[in-house]
């Protein structure tokens, strides 16, 4: 389950995302009507039979292809196997009831006349609330959430330029000041999220923050020079040792690629890996 805003690039090739709080809520907590369920079940069965036929056809075609082409068609055969497994899993899920949750997060409370604004950026807090709900009800174990940047004009007091324009501040104080307003907003929303996680108990009765690792950061260390070095990264929860700021040099003994942090996260989640991508080691000595 991925809850995230959609990127704007035509070439972006990530998992499809959903940025509409109401739709996310429906997906997570509103059960499908029986007729739709029945139809979905039928489609799943039909697709499985289609794949049987298509596999036979692909195997037959395979024999008539050159070597390099066969490797390519192997991808297709692998995809067939994976879809078959997923169709089966999806069928199993059809019978499992979705957890119940109050729609207060997206509709506002009954007691007061809080208006929930579902337009970006104001829906940021709503999305964070939905993430807490999803984790609390055990609807998912993994969530990705991204803030769309673009060159939108944030509707905040004091903002006169598009977000992207501001990130190319060229050290000009007036632009930096405006950028600070937006980044403060991001940080505040994130802080609110952590607090909420801390205050919400999970199924075992302990704080959700204790059982959840939260990673927050940016893909650029200095957007003005388009540098992807020295990234600002925050990690919280999951029983990791927190409360300190670590600096990493670029080279030498103290130099660390970000992937080292990912190794620590994997290990913390019980996945026995001692390497990930460009990792050189891990950060266990600082965080555990």
């Amino acid at each position, binding site marked *: 389950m991925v809850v995230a805003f959609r990127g704007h690039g*035509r070439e972006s*090739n990530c998992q499809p995302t959903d940025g509409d709080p109401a739709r996310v809520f429906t997906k997570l907590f509103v059960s499908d009507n029986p007729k739709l369920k029945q139809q979905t079940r039928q489609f799943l069965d039909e697709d499985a039979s289609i794949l049987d036929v298509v596999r036979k056809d692909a195997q037959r075609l395979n024999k008539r292809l050159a070597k390099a082409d066969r490797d390519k068609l192997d991808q297709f055969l692998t995809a067939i196997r994976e879809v078959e497994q997923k169709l089966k899993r999806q069928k199993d899920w059809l019978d499992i009831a979705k957890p119940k949750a109050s729609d207060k997060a997206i509709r506002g409370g009954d007691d007061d006349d809080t208006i929930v604004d579902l337009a970006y950026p104001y829906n940021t807090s709503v999305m964070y609330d939905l993430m807490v709900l999803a984790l609390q009800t055990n609807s998912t174990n993994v969530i990705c959430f991204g803030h769309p940047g*673009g*060159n939108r004009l944030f509707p905040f007091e004091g903002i006169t330029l*598009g977000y*992207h*324009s501001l990130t190319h501040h060229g050290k000009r104080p007036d632009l930096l000041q405006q950028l600070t307003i937006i980044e403060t907003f991001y940080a505040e929303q994130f802080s609110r999220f952590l607090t909420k996680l801390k205050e919400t108990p999970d199924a075992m009765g302990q704080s959700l923050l204790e059982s959840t690792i939260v990673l927050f950061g940016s893909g650029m260390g200095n957007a003005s*020079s388009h*540098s992807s070095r020295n990234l600002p990264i925050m990690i919280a929860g999951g029983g990791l040792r927190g409360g300190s700021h670590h600096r990493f040099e670029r080279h030498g003994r103290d130099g660390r690629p970000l992937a080292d942090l990912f190794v620590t996260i994997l290990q913390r989640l019980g996945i026995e890996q001692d390497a990930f991508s460009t990792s050189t080691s891990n950060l266990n000595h600082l965080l555990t």
Partner: protein
Amino acid sequence: MSRLLLCLLIVACAESVHAQRRHRDILQPFLKSYCVKCHGAEHQKADRRFDRLSVLKNDVEKAEVLQEILDQLNLAAMPPEDETQPSAAELKRVVVLLTSSLAKAREETRQNVGKVVLRRLNRVEYRNTIRDLFQLKMVDFDPTTTFPADDSTAGFDNVGEGLVTSDYLLRNYLEAARKVADKAILPGAQPQMIHYHTGGKATPKSAPKDLDSINADKVGRREAGRMFIKYRQPLGLTLLDKKRGVPVDGEYVIRFTAQAVRRKSRYKDEDLRYNSNEPMRLSISIDSRELGASAHRIIGEYEIPDNEVIEVEHHVWLEKGFTFHVHWANGPNGSFKRILRKVLPKYNQDALFPIRNPPEMYVGSGPELHVHTLGIEGPFYETWPPPGFARFFPNPPEKPDANYLDESLVRVASAAFRRPVSHKEMEPYIALARAYLAKHGDFWAAAKYGVRAILASPNFLYLAETTSAGSNSRKVSDHELSSRLSYFLWSSMPDDELRTVADNGSLSEPKVLRKQVERMLSDPKSSAFTENFTGQWLGLRKLGEMPPDPEKNQAYYEDKLEDAMRQETQLVFAYVLRENRSIMEFVHSNYTFLNSALARHYGIADIAHEGFQKVSLKPKSNRGGLLGHGSILTATSNGVETQPVARGIWVLENLLGTPPNPPPPDIDPIEPDTRGVATIRQLMEKHRKNPTCYECHRKIDPIGLSLENYDYVGAWRDRYSKKLRIDSSGKLPDGTVILGPSGIKSFLLGRPEQFTQCLTEKLFVYALGRRLSFADRDDIDQIVTVMPQHNYGFGALIQQIAASEAFHIK
């Protein structure tokens, strides 16, 4: 047998010993004197090392390196000007040696390289193929919206090697096939017509029952059978229930009569946020509740004359569930609430007491767009059953049986697989559909099921070029050739005519092939080539990824300049192609295509009318040629400022065909400091002082800086600010001094061969759907050599590619 083999081996060895000796005597000393200092054991600039060439085991790899050395020498790009230069005689000897030994290597390796890797249809090709297979209107129906974007390899997203098939995509294929089968298989009688109408003489009572669903009250008012629109309203007027929309796919006619009233009123334009000098315009939009915002589209806009009722009839294809609305396109902006609260009190003291003076008091005094009648009627069909259905299911009997099912599925597959198929081959598909028919007894559901399976078949999803057992021939079959052609020029499947010449085996005859290419280029479907090739060769698809600041660039958004810019480039490309004009017009031309908004943006006055048109350019217009196109200048900027480096790389890569190497990984990018008056040129000069950077940036920067007179949305400028003039002069690595855009243009115009080669290579990758290898050089060189005889005609170039050897072997 073994003896014969031995003889051959000895000949081959003798040949290679001879070649080795010549390499040792001529090439190696040359490399040692002029190249190894920078590309040897000590330094490997640009990651190249030439002192160990002789130990390279892989012949292809070695040949590619030698080819690169030869190209650099031919371009006089290496050795750098400040290094020791070889004498003309030395140079000639090496060039001759490399040319001949590479030709030989190509001959030898032809059998193993330059193969097309099995190509999957990419997203665009899939959509177009579905459109043509079932003759569907794919404007508002698009089953590919959830497909993942296709990766691009060697600059293009139709290269088989990079087109992966994930389980996610396969699931999308299954779902798309379901939707397509529902749209395409339409048994039974023609759907009933709907006639909705309101206003005019027909009183609401005599109108059909559905009039109750009229949505006019909410946004305008219905008064004595007429509605009016008071301001620019997002909703507008409609007749249809917005939940249900039209009942079936088909062509509908929307009719209205309208009149502009009080275009100029006592309310000031700036108060109403309205321009009373323009004639009023009424637009028609369509949308679908099910598909949401992405389906919303303006389908037409009409000028409405003052005080005169005009009648408009608009024909449009609507998919089931779509609704339509009419709007006042240029009415007062903002909400009616704002007009009531902020504008009315300024003009009417009484308006301060809204209870006594209802908001409607504005009505009857401000500008209004009156819609007297509004109607929709349909669906209409040219023929029923639709041709895309009837071609596969001709004259269906009252109770179609299993045999009819078999035959129909074979017909579908033979079209979908782009080659003849046999009943035998189709057995698994037929068995699947037959089993469904036996179990459920529903013929048409079974037919849809069979079609769904065909659309998930690798024979449909991939452009499979098979080898037949025992045959060594690498020549493509006529059917494979027809697919290559149609995906090259149409991004879609072959049509009936192309299929016929493939079926009768005449397509590979040069005369027939020529005629088909000519026909295909003049077919409207060739717009896919224009769109997809320019989108990638010129990077037009990147346009819009980094949009400029909305506050600072209001005209850019109001005039839809992004679309206009893209259109300019596509129109020029299509024109040069259609008229077989010289490809050098991409570098420079004395005309371009503009609409009035883009002409304004370029500072070009007096053009004939508002829409796009061919415009002759004055010598000092600074336009004409791709480098003056707003599209490219904007796409190479970041929406905030120009990026001379990106522009320089763009020219090297896409016009000169000599892309620079990526920067070494441990170099920090320059940190912009725009406090004070530091210009981008000064920043870049600082950067270039670093010798590692200098190597490439001496080629990149002068080109990029020569285009600094175009700002980040491609508008012309002479100065950065009052105090700061733009310096767009520079010196290229070969010593050529250039001044501004015209300087770089003349430089390019002086190298028609290099530009031709660059474009030819790009076209080859796109046409073949694979990376090029050095084995393709003969084909490319030959084309470059003959192009002057064809006056560099673009149409001729396409013909040359379609006739090339590479296009005919697999």
